């Protein structure tokens, strides 16, 4: 079974996790000032790379914490996971 590294619990089976989609999408500070195009971009547009992809994950049946993880979408390999609020590590860090 695929093991997902939770930054709190260590490697745990994937059944315990839920994926929350792409990470590091910032919500506008003042949404009412954002035009419709930019707002729909924020709501619906997501990257779909072949390769490294930063995602939000929730250890739903474990410690129940949310965290971010970098996964290779081609091989399904988890490269790194890090706590919410921490900077995205290499590569392509923000």
């Amino acid at each position, binding site marked *: *079974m695929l093991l997902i590294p939770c930054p*709190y*619990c260590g490697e*745990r*089976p994937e*059944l*315990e996790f839920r994926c929350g989609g792409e990470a590091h999408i910032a919500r506008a500070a003042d949404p009412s000032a954002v035009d419709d195009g930019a707002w729909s971009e924020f709501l619906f547009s997501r990257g779909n790379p072949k390769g490294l992809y930063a995602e939000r994950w929730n250890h739903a*049946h*474990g*410690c*129940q*914490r949310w965290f971010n993880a970098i996964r290779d979408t081609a091989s399904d390999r988890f490269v790194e996971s890090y706590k919410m609020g921490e900077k995205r590590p290499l590569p392509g860090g923000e």
Partner: protein
Amino acid sequence: MLETPNAARRVSAFADAVSPAGIRPLPGAARFALRLREADATGEAAGFRLDQPLNTFAAQGDRLSLRLGPNEWLLIGPEADADAIAAEIAAALGTRFHTLVDIGHRNVAIEVKGPHAADILNAGCPLDLFDARFPTGTATRTLLGKAEIVLMRLDDAPTYRVECWRSFATYVHDFLTEAAQEFDAGT
């Protein structure tokens, strides 16, 4: 606080259950879900340790404290002490912001014991229960089949304690019973 003591009559969730050797429904207990800021989790409160590492439990007498998350604990004590425990914890934590929820009637516990205990649990639990990865003293939330459980390893027999929601109790008990058939009475 409730105006009446938490003294509702309880009917066992396992009234009609027939358990194989090694699997035993446990009697009722007082249980509390405690949420507390990580920075405030020092020392102990009312006999429940708070500063143990994540995914381990600490026992002091008959009071168990399971750290399920960085800021979440499951506290288990004798059933008769439920009201006293709630009052003692509130007093011990004082001004530290926390939530304490009585889940004594939400959960039930099943003991799984014997040389094949890990094999029986692994019929539905994806965790590695090998001694090195899940030693005595470990406690974590995980899955058993389709039900969420809290799994603790109490001793090296090995003895495991499975805590699940009452509404899943029949499913969990039957799941374990069926898994135990493979090992010819389990022990």
